[in-house]
């Protein structure tokens, strides 16, 4: 048994040494920040983030940022929240822009209004597109800063349009045209190619929200306590989506997979797809045909929900670290970085100033589709976001999938989702 004593001593001294060095670190080393972030589209975005972080650290030697790739949006939220519960809260993270209500309910984040001090910082807070701020604000306070933000855009294959006798330069303007053009492509290809695909796994509620908004309908109240899924305008929107498969034979039956859709488009198995603009750069580098990007077609109006991730700062971090986190976020969202990020990915430049940088101006002059998401912003709406958002979105996801797979009519599915959501939201709707 004696042999064990030196080991215990060793362990003890190692522990003390560790504590001592930790104490010293606090005294004169840089502020250390941990950030989780998601990637929801293809491509080597982690490299882009790592390069940005390296550049930041060389400009700010007093701040150390550890950026940790944490999977998709859900995984990232789970990682950040479990770290918080374990008492090892990160200082900042990129999470879903629509996580706001849940993060507030868990009392996890702070408002940027409470952190900004100088006028310059306040100006920065006002420098973003208002459309992108909608999901990050509540009761006049800003909790989320736009970073990897998107809208849904229409990608179309110009070669396929030409082969079907359509004008390759003219994308569909409205719902009827999209159905017609899609059916035309399908017929002209002898059933070899689909006309259009709208993904219905991953984020079905997001796509549905676009249809509903184009039909002039907003799915939720501004304060996130009520939803309006079974409105006639919403039902009509879902019926139109279903009819693309059943009536027009222009879209496959059953659900369409979010994760493989881009590959479908690149392999020309569909002539059009609805997808996040975050895929733009990947489609550009992989497609060996001529393609275009357009705003989504309209019904009563144009429209797409915004989407993507925001920066949040956590409440548990000491004020010094929160300030450092804000410095980092300001740096990351500065016009030059926002422009570079947009060029690398296809995500939007988050502020008007980003589109005024030389880099992004030149890029758009050379590649016009890069401006579509920005132009569509004036027709955009906030992404579906309510209290108990996970459950409410899941109810709507199920309804959309039930209608698309023919298990229920659009009306049945949506009124069931409405009931489910109302049950969940009852205690918030007072």
């Amino acid at each position, binding site marked *: 048994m004696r042999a064990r004593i030196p080991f215990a001593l060793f362990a003890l001294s190692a522990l003390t040494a560790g504590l001592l060095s930790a104490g010293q670190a606090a005294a004169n080393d840089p502020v250390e920040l941990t950030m989780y972030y998601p990637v929801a589209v293809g491509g080597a975005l982690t490299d882009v983030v790592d390069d940005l972080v390296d550049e930041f650290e060389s400009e700010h030697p007093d701040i150390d940022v550890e950026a940790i790739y944490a999977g998709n949006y859900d995984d990232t939220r789970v990682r950040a929240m479990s770290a918080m519960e374990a008492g090892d809260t990160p200082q900042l993270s990129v999470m879903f822009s629509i996580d706001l209500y849940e993060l507030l*309910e868990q009392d996890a984040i702070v408002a940027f209004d409470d952190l900004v001090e100088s006028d310059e910082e306040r100006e920065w807070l006002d420098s973003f597109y208002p459309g992108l701020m909608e999901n990050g604000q509540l009761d006049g306070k800003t909790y989320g800063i736009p970073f990897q933000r998107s809208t849904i855009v229409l990608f179309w294959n110009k070669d396929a349009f030409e082969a079907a006798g359509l004008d390759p330069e003219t994308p569909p303007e409205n719902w009827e045209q999209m159905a017609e053009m899609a059916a035309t492509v399908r017929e002209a290809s002898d059933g070899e190619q689909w006309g259009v695909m709208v993904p219905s796994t991953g984020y079905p509620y997001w796509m549905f929200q676009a249809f509903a908004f184009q039909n002039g309908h907003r799915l939720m109240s501004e304060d996130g306590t009520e939803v309006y899924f079974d409105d006639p305008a919403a039902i009509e929107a879902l019926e139109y989506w279903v009819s693309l498969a059943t009536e027009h034979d222009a879209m496959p039956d*059953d659900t369409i997979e979010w*994760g*493989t859709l881009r590959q*479908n488009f690149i*392999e020309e198995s569909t002539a059009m797809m609805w997808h996040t603009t975050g895929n733009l750069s990947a489609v550009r580098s992989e497609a060996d045909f001529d393609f275009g990007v357009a705003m989504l077609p309209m019904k009563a109006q144009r429209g797409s929900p915004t989407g993507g991730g925001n920066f949040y700062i956590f409440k548990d971090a000491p004020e010094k670290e929160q300030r450092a986190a804000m410095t980092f976020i300001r740096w990351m969202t500065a016009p030059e970085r926002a422009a570079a990020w947009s060029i690398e990915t296809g995500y939007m430049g988050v502020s008007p100033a980003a589109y005024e940088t030389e880099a992004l101006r030149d890029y758009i002059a050379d590649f016009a589709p890069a401006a579509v998401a920005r132009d569509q912003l004036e027709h955009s709406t906030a992404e579906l976001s309510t209290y108990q958002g*996970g459950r409410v979105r899941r109810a709507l*996801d*199920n309804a959309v999938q039930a209608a698309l797979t023919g*298990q229920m009519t659009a009306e049945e599915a949506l009124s069931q989702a409405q009931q489910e959501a109302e049950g969940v939201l009852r205690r918030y709707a007072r």
Partner: protein
Amino acid sequence: MTLTAHGKMQLYGALLLLPAAVLLAAFAYLPTIMTVINSLFLPGFRGEPAEFVGVENYQVLFDDPTFWQVARNNLLYALGTIPTSIALALGMALFVNGKLPGRGFVRMAYFTPTILPMIAAANIWMFFYAPQIGLFNSLLETLGFSGVNWLGDPSVALGSVIIMSVWKEAGFFMIFYLAALQSIPPELKEASDLEGTGRWSFFWRVTFPLLMPTTLFVLINSLINAVRVVDHLFILTKGGPNNATNLLLYYVYENAFSFFDRTTAATITVVILLVLAVVATLKFTILDRRTHYQ
């Protein structure tokens, strides 16, 4: 204070047990107890204290049609994966235990699915299953059949998940059967050859009974796997379309982390634990007694 020799031995034994006991307590007993406690409370809303509601959470859970759908899915999943993967594993093991050319290569090929990380395998299969561009539909179309939307059609989606699980599991179980087959003494085969026993009755009368301990082990493992499957669903279906492929543990995950509803998650967990406890008791009382160990 001095200890007797016996006391010292006891202390020594207790100390040896301590690490395992601490780990078990920290990662098994304590979480279980916390889960049971959580399942009896409603969490506080905006800072109010949690409220004790007894079995109400269970009543709510049993009234939830989604829970029953998920439980049914899981039962179908177990019935679909367990017998198939065991039978396939046994077949493959018998095959590669015989004399055939390139035996090492075939064994390796059967085992490959096991060493692939689940997430990577699921990503590959997602593209196999993709309706227009996927491998399976391309094959079907060359044979003149129309394609199937493997993961997008609620009536076949669960079956597609099951097929992939069988592919993943059978190779793993094969290894155990192969090891067991090789530990069967060759004299038995020689003796039965002298007696003129047919291959078929030799398998049923000798080989299969001697493989019973392995079968039992594999059965328990596949049962556990059927309950703890969650990773394929992340990639392949996220439980959709319309909950058609949602399984119990994924439903727990969804409740805990997508819906922030720890209470429901805890309640379902307790139900799963109880069911597994019943199965474990059956195993110890019935199956173990009927199994012949060498």
